[in-house]
């Protein structure tokens, strides 16, 4: 079961901090992050990649669902 981070409505750098915390604390190998701007998608993707995770996103109704998987 993937761990979820809901960072919708939050401004920079909160989504990045929440993503980093989730990746560092999770025992699993998948984390799903919800954000609502492309800037947050880019920033959360970047911090995930720096920590050794790969990111994919899809957009539904102006919400971006970012799926992060441990490489």
């Amino acid at each position, binding site marked *: 079961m993937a761990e979820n981070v809901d960072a919708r409505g939050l401004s*920079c750098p909160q989504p*990045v*901090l929440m993503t*980093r915390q989730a990746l560092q604390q999770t025992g699993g190998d998948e984390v799903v992050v919800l954000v609502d701007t492309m800037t947050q998608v880019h*920033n959360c993707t*970047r911090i995930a990649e720096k920590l050794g995770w790969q990111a994919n996103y899809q957009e539904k109704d102006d919400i971006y669902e970012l799926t992060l998987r441990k490489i």
Partner: protein
Amino acid sequence: MAPDALAQVLRPLEKMFPAERFPQILVGLGTLSDDAAVYKITDELALIATLDFFTPVVDDPYQYGAIAATNALSDVYAMGGQVTLALNISCLSDCLPPEIISEILRGGGEKVAEAGGVIVGGHSVDDKEPKYGLVVLGFVHPDRVLTKAGAQPGDTLVLTKQLGVGIITTAFKADQTRPEHFDAAVESMLKLNRTAAELLQNRDTHACTDVTGFALLGHACEIAERSGVQLRIHADRIPFLPGARDYADMWLFPAGTGHNQTGYGKHVHFDSAVEEEVRQLLYTPETSGGLLAAVPADRLDDLRADFAKANEPLWVIGEVLDGTGIEVVP
């Protein structure tokens, strides 16, 4: 606002006030736009007018007022002028204790006094999210106006403050900063550009602007576009405030970084050796940043000596070339 959105909403005003109908306006809207407006009164005298206000970037009310004022005053200096009058703009909650409001106004007032100007009035409205700033008026000789439009191939690019205020204040909002990093950023924001502007003007500076919301690269793009030149910036020569690189490694960039990259990215070419964190830092908005200027290469030694004598910092960060846009090399 993001740079492209701002340009779009301002376009109707440019049509309403066409430049050809107002010959006294040396610097105004549209293609004439710059850090502040300049209105020629006589052959010897031009008025500089500018306005700037923002939400708190620090918790201390006195520092907030002083930073907002330093930032507003900077636009007069970036045009080569001297500060004369200022008016307060405050959007503060009626529920705020009067001592807090007094401290904000005291901070602003002391900076205007340090600049040699005087506060002559202002206007306040009730607002839940605090905002403070000033209208600033100054004067300059019409022949000595410093704009973004005069850079020439062969000029040297100089910068008068370190970068990094934007990422440090963003990290501060998330409780991620070390106190010494934050203090250095505040000190930088509180420093007037007055002396730096005077020294630049005395050495025949060709183009000048202050580095604020559109970041180093956005403001550099404006110089390149207005002057019809290319700017080459050496990333390794860019001075950063202590801590800025650490917070970039943690990717604590404000939303403005992405907006600036979207708005100016098509004009900027990075050498592949320039690290991603550095690229992002160069797109990160600054508050009360330093002056970015194009100076004649043969005046650089004198300029360096002037700055050293005045105990003012100066960094040589690049050069002006034939072409368009910005080239960032390691």
